[in-house]
């Protein structure tokens, strides 16, 4: 069973690494590379600047994430507070039940 489990994990690891790469769209970057290379009179400096602009544009996309302010954030903190409260309350309830009643025994 151990050997089988290890073998499966190995296959799992290999699959995680290889399968998405096989399905990934490789043409996009290749085409861009080709596009850059084919342009005549387009120097290294210009290519690098263009790539830099594209990278900045991609970074700007991340600013679309809705995390970081307003009512949704209050909901997130509220959720964490409710969960923490529930766990603490449950633990307290069990602790109270299991605590020996000293006053009753005296």
């Amino acid at each position, binding site marked *: *069973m151990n050997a089988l489990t290890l073998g499966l994990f190995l296959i799992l690891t290999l699959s995680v690494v290889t399968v998405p790469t096989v399905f990934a769209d490789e043409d996009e970057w290749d085409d861009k590379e080709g596009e850059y290379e084919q342009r005549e009179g387009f120097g290294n400096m210009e290519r690098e600047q263009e790539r830099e602009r594209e990278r900045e544009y991609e970074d700007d996309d991340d600013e679309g994430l809705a*995390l970081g302010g307003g009512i*949704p954030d209050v*909901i997130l903190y*509220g959720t964490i507070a409710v*969960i923490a409260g529930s766990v603490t309350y*449950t633990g307290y309830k069990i602790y109270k039940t299991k605590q020996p009643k000293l006053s009753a025994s005296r």
Partner: protein
Amino acid sequence: MNTKIIPIIFLLLFLAPIPTFADDDDDDSEDAIENLGWVALGAGVIANLPFIVFNKWRRFAVRAGGQSLQMVQQAVQFYKPILNFHIILNSIGYFAGMTHGLLLVNNLDSISLSLAITMTVLMISGILLRYTSSRNTKVFNRLLHGQFGLVFLLVALIILHVLTGDD
């Protein structure tokens, strides 16, 4: 033999979302991912409503006594299948919901994150309640899993997520 099959099924399930990435048509793949969310929601409703109704009816009937107590004794045989149905369908709903969330992680907002945290807490408490042998852990998770506050929070977050999901 069953213990050997389970990791293989998990492996196949792990690879299941990959074809979604392979699809170049953004609209089709986004629709498929969105549908995964509806699958999660549907599975959650079907898994929980009959289970909650059955448990409430059982408690009510035990309190009432008499004829209804006999009905409860007859219905005891259905408890295990309903519990298994509840576990299996909730697991499907949880993994469908999480896959839906992971594939749309670029659009992550605080409400979705809250929903994922709440689902995970309830899922872990349910798994521990079912599969642990420690008495203390069982008692703790029984109390936590059935907390009205958590259930109410989950329902409220699902409604909010559905309402704000398209934004």
